[in-house]
């Protein structure tokens, strides 16, 4: 039943994004080769895949996308920008509702992550204000940074877009340690979203 629901959501997400342009060409890989914290051999598959680009959170603190944001965590990730007046407010309202529904498990069992697609405008100070508007707690991180680094992180999540208005309304829900990643339509019913998030949090790994 859950699986059906999930497939349904993926389908609706796909239907929802049919208006979006053809997938853009991938962005250039960041020049900063220090973004791998270890030698490639030591790195986990997820680290190798995501690499470890440097981003900046809403407090102005530098964080590494893999080591600090994803590693060892279950995350719900979306792409947005603060000056977006159309789909971002309702989408992030849903993120807020997930935060409410999961209570103090957010920041412990699951982490919410919002990446801007407009780093030029979205300074840490703007992200901070935006976070306040959505009552974001300590388990919800907003990320900006150098455009090439953000583009790369978004690209690895399948969320890279050339024009900011093209960003999707998909939530990427991933359990980094077990490697289970799901997608859900970010404006779906919150109870259904929470179910999907919980299914990813509770994943024990192994073959599905």
């Amino acid at each position, binding site marked *: 039943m859950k699986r059906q629901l999930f497939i349904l959501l993926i389908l609706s997400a796909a239907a*929802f*994004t*049919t*208006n979006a342009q053809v997938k853009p060409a991938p962005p250039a890989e960041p020049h900063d080769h220090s973004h791998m914290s270890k030698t490639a051999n030591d790195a986990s598959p997820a680290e190798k895949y995501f690499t470890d680009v440097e981003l900046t959170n809403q407090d102005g603190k530098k964080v590494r996308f893999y080591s600090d944001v994803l590693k060892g965590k279950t995350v719900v990730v979306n792409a947005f920008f603060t000056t977006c007046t*159309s789909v971002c407010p309702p989408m992030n309202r849903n993120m807020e509702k997930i935060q409410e529904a999961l209570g103090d498990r957010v920041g412990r069992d699951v982490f919410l992550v919002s990446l801007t697609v407009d780093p030029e405008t979205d300074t840490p100070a703007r992200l901070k204000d935006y976070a306040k508007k959505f009552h974001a707690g300590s388990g919800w991180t907003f990320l900006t940074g150098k455009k090439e680094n953000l583009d790369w992180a978004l690209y690895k999540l399948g969320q890279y877009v050339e024009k900011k*208005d093209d960003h999707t*309304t998909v939530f990427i829900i991933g359990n980094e340690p077990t490697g289970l990643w799901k997608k859900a339509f970010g404006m779906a*019913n919150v109870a259904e979203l929470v179910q999907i998030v919980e299914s990813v949090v509770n994943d024990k790994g192994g073959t599905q």
Partner: protein
Amino acid sequence: MLSAAFALTVVCVVLVTAAPPNQQVAQQPQAAKGLTPAERRGKALYLRGESPSGKPIVAMLGDVDVPPSTMPCAGCHGLRGEGKTEGGVTAGNLTWTNMIKPYGHTHPSGRKHGAFDEKLFAQSLFDGVDPAGNKLAVAMPRFQMSNEDLADLIAYLKRIDTDRDPGLTDATITVGTIIPKDGPFAEIGAAMKEVLTAYFANINDKGGIYNRRIELKTIDTGADAAATAANTRTQIENGDVFAIVSGLSAGADKELAAVARDAEIPFLGPVTLLTQTSAQENRNLFYLLPGAGQQARALLNFAAGKPELKKSRLAIVHSENEIALAAANAIEDQARKLGWNSVTRKVISGGRFDAQAIVTALKSEGVETVFFLSASGESEFISAAATANWTPHVFLLGSLAERDLVKSVPLSFKDHVFLSFPSVPNDVAPAGLAELRALEEKYNFPHRHIASQLNAFAAAKIFTEGLKRAGRDLSREKFITALEGLYEYDTGVTPSITFGPNRRVGAMGAYVLSIDPAKKDFVSNGWVSND
């Protein structure tokens, strides 16, 4: 030429100090001229989700009700009802002429339906279904609102495609400038107006901007800041002004910033040292040159770049006028950012200034770097320090400095006195000056109060550039976005101008000049940025 820079900045200081205490300006939404009352109410609902009747409006998104003010129609359907696509969601074109097309609509998603009428429109708004009974996109909230509000909204949608921003017609763009009609600064204001008038006349002679003539309207500064703000507000409301450019309005900075914010009118190039630079709070203000805060940060950055001064014991001596306070706060903030631990502040209050006492105190504290921010007293301070055999590095805002300072600095303070300037004579390139001279000849006005005239010239030039970039389908919103795209734009008479989504000061930084006491002259240390 440097004295010209002095003259202008001195004007700002005088205007500021002459201004009475700030008065609260009543906030009034701007009336959209030419709209009927119903259309005007509908516009408020369309743009901001405000209920004109005061009766509740509910917006439901799924099971969640969202404040209508966070999801007003314009957010998705655009300021002009033109519709747009974002995040894969296409919000349709809501202009009434489009909605009632008899052959109906086929949407990109394949959804088809016939023409809307008022009843069917209400049904789509309330029940979330189109005229064919298809569900609307998930991102479209279902609304509940009173019949009056609905009628107002429809009235506006019938008018939206011909509703332009104020001050804009098919043939004209009206721009305001705020200058004193009489009083001590009337002549400077007149000199600036001559430049603006000639600049726009010259543009109009060549066919205008996309076939629109630029018309200049002068707005008189009042007896005080509140009166200036009130005059400006009245002109905006009654006079159809698209934007405000340049002018001599220092002293009413806060009040005019509030007017620009409330009326959502772009204000480009106000001459002031009290810049209000948060684009997030007020995206309508664009300054060409750095204010006291930006200059102060540049001075501190300059000090931080000198190994002997980096993290030296730092003192800020300042008076309590607004400019000195703005600079002092900026210095303290920037010093903290750059890792200074010890910053002492000494306030000169009520005009009582005992140079010797301050020198003794600071010397005994081991202070090595002094930011001296006051409209007077620096030469007294420096000579008292020299007498006490103490030679700290002294930093000053050029705009506040005494004109004769360069002659009074003792020899022992060689390379120890630094001043910031927003602009230097070298910024005025021969080509830029020639352009202004050509205007003077063609339109027959005198070359006077040159620093002020250059400022007006630069503002007029950037205003015109912004209009060109915004295109024929002009709106205030498009104009602001166009200005935000200006990158290292060369006016020919100022440092290069860059704006951005988070940047409202064109030249962010300052020139730092030091004083050579032997030659009694300034020595340039180049432009220092704000970052």
